[in-house]
């Protein structure tokens, strides 16, 4: 029982990262039908930017609460900005080109981000400053840290905020309109370019938060960390039904739990096989993911 609880909390924690990153995949896909293969690396860039700010502030002996808040906000703003710049230069010119072309530029951006960070920060690991204590509490025999609880609640709060943003603001309504029909949205006077840029900003900023969380949780970050996490988050987005926001949240948590339990009860060597087998099995039964809607085609 205690092992189960331990794994459950660990799964929810990593699931929170995946959910936050999956939201970026799913929002971008919903609006421009692009699988943004660079998104995992955006997450990695967010982790590095957060690390840079946090290290600088820690060196200035700032109280850790304020330092962390500043680091998260700055990482969000900067990473969001990078997301917008990438969209403007690498994706926007190809939005009406064949879909595969834009997929390849996304792969190119992914490579460029990885190698850019490699050039700036070097190939080794960077260690997040130990600002947050590793303290925690024991419940039902399971050791749970405050960091885990903080991460889970923080990401739930962000998801709730995103939900309100998408459903209660004009920009959110515009996003949903674009997801249904971009041309009709343009004809209705929506500034399509700005909506797309906002989507990239929000998606990238959420990934940056996940990056900082990952740094705090695992303490070490590396230029290559975006690949595997990005892959899991992408899997989560597809599992939930790509383009569907609640689906991405649920998918993230499911993948996180699946990973924790398969590592705990089987072996971490087989985690990916289990995750992908579940994904493929789900898609065979429900081809559009758990929450995805069927696209009906008119003849």
């Amino acid at each position, binding site marked *: 029982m205690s092992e189960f609880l331990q794994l459950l909390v660990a799964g929810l924690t990593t699931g929170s990262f995946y959910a936050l990153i999956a939201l970026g995949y799913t929002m971008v896909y919903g609006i421009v039908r692009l699988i943004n293969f660079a998104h995992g690396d955006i997450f990695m860039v967010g982790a590095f930017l957060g690390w840079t700010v946090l290290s600088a502030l820690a060196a200035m002996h700032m109280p850790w609460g304020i330092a962390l808040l500043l680091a998260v906000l700055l990482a969000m703003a900067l990473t969001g900005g990078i997301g917008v710049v990438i969209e403007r230069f690498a994706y926007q010119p190809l939005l009406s080109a*064949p879909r595969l072309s834009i997929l390849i530029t996304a792969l190119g951006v992914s*490579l460029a981000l990885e190698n850019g960070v490699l050039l700036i920060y070097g190939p080794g690991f960077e260690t997040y400053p130990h600002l947050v204590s590793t303290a925690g509490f024991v419940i039902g025999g399971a050791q749970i840290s405050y960091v885990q609880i903080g991460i889970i609640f923080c990401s739930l709060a962000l998801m709730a905020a995103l939900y309100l943003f998408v459903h209660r603001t004009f920009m959110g309504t515009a996003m949903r309109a674009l997801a249904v029909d971009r041309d009709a949205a343009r004809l209705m006077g929506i500034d399509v370019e700005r909506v797309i840029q906002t989507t990239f900003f929000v998606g990238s900023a959420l990934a940056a938060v996940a990056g900082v969380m990952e740094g705090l949780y695992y303490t070490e970050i590396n230029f290559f960390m975006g690949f595997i996490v990005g*892959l899991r988050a992408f899997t989560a987005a597809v599992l939930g039904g790509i383009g569907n926001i609640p689906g991405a949240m649920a998918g993230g948590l499911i993948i996180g739990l699946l990973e924790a339990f398969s590592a705990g009860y089987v072996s971490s060597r087989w985690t990916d*096989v289990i995750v992908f087998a579940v994904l493929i099995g789900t898609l065979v039964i429900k081809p559009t993911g758990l929450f995805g809607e069927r696209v009906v085609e008119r003849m």
Partner: protein
Amino acid sequence: MAAAARFPVAPLVIGALVLAAALPLVSSNYVIDVGLTVVTYAILALGLNIVVGYAGLLDLGYAAFFAIGAYTTALLETLLHLNFWETIPFSMLLAGVSGVIIGFPTLRLRSDYLAIVTLGFGEIVRIIATNLDITGGPNGLYGINPARLFGHDITSPKAVYELGIAFLVVVLVFVIRLGRSRLGRAWTSLREDESAAEAVGVPTLRVKMLAYVMGAVIGGLGGSLFAARFGAIDPTSFTYAQSVTILIIVVLGGRGSLPGVILGAIIVAGLPEALRFIHLWREFAFAIALILLMLVRPQGLWPARLRHIAAPSATAAHAVPEAEPSALVADEAGDVPAPHRGTLLEVRGISRIFGGLRAVSDVSFSVRQGEILSIIGPNGAGKTTVFNCLTGVLQPNEGSILWGGASLVGLAPHRVVALGLARTFQGIRLFDDMTVFENALVGMDHRYRVPLVTEMLALSGARREAGRHYAACRNWLEFVGLADQAGMRAGDLPYGDQRRLEIARALAGQPRLLLLDEPAAGMNPTEKQSLMGLIRRIRDLGTTVLLIEHDMLLVMGVSDRIIVMDRGGVIAEGRPAEIQANPRVIAAYLGTEEDDEDVGALGAVA
């Protein structure tokens, strides 16, 4: 695209291959080594090009087939002591079987879901290879013998390179023949419009599966070559990054374009070598170069040619008497069993329900041999839904559809086409990026009798049959008045011509019943006039026509009988003059007098 078409591609590619084969005469071992890497990537990319370029599907786990080929050769050599050549069939077979395995769950998925499923498959194969003992775990397998030919081991870099070139030539010939075959056309039609392809007789599920299988077989061959080259393999050669590299080669070079794919292999495998002098910046520079190249040339560096097969000339086509439309149709009519000559199609009480709406409710009618029967009715009356039920696109919830005494319910659209019903669409659905001629060919391809292998080997029987098909398709184009546009891109045709091409594509399948869904929509009066003539000529050949149309002038002028539908049901049936006088029909179109009185009463109250 036009510039590439004028280029004499074939001699250029042959020249380049001869030069490549002569490379060892002048080059160092280092250059040869890079050359062999290029050749290996070219082979793999030609395989992936079948999936991505020809069929328009996505595969982010292609390295799995490469891995399966390499591990098969390695295991058979080290455990069973087979030699290199004996292992190749097994490599290709195993890779092909895994192509079926990956193809199967992905058949029903949309392309974006394919990305993650194929990626997942690639990762699963790699992780299994890393974790099993028999595959040597993370260390892999070693001690794989080199290939032996005429009693000599092929070990020196130059000899292995020549072996690679030989493999490349074989693969190249294979994919060229595939691309020109009916299977190649089926892949392209699938890429352009899957539902339309199915509706003109392409068995899309099988064709999709075959794309994965053919791609996999070539990947397996590449894997065998790789194992023999290095004598040792380990899982790090078969990563996601490897799959991505091969995909980049295909898209960067120009998907579907064979010279493009080879050019892509040279650039992607060669560029990092050429960039060695910038050391650490190399990968970064490659990434930026990749983005810029895609921005400048979204279609790829050497885009695919449009035309694979030229239409025969008028004299050549008319030299084949059995390829004349009249002969083709007469040929079909002879197959009809005598008791069914009168009634061709019988619809008995079909209903189709969407959610809570009965779009079609208890509709019955029959189509007689040789007539022009029209279905008219206000928008939303259920006309197109009836068409979709007849052609297998939708299944009716109730009722039966009998064709020559046999039921059509439950058959996939391509099976219905094979039985002799062909259709056109309300919104035009052509294969835009194919020529006019090849559009028509796709409509006829389900009639091929010779096996695909015979066709790819261009044996005389297959050549004769292909010649007859080409002549027939050209004649059908002439029949609808498009013979001179045969070499054009279908998407570039003017609107009225696109409509007529859809009809030609359907006719090329030699249907006994042609279903036309609003063929006159959007046409001007002159075009409508000529369409009326065309429909009559189709009937005069002996093909029965079932027509949905809103244009009353056309319907009344051309129909032998008319069925009127309203709100999902049939409200009248009869000759044009009877229909024009039928009060229920007038009510459905103009509203009843009672309604008018109601309006008047409302007016009085106000």
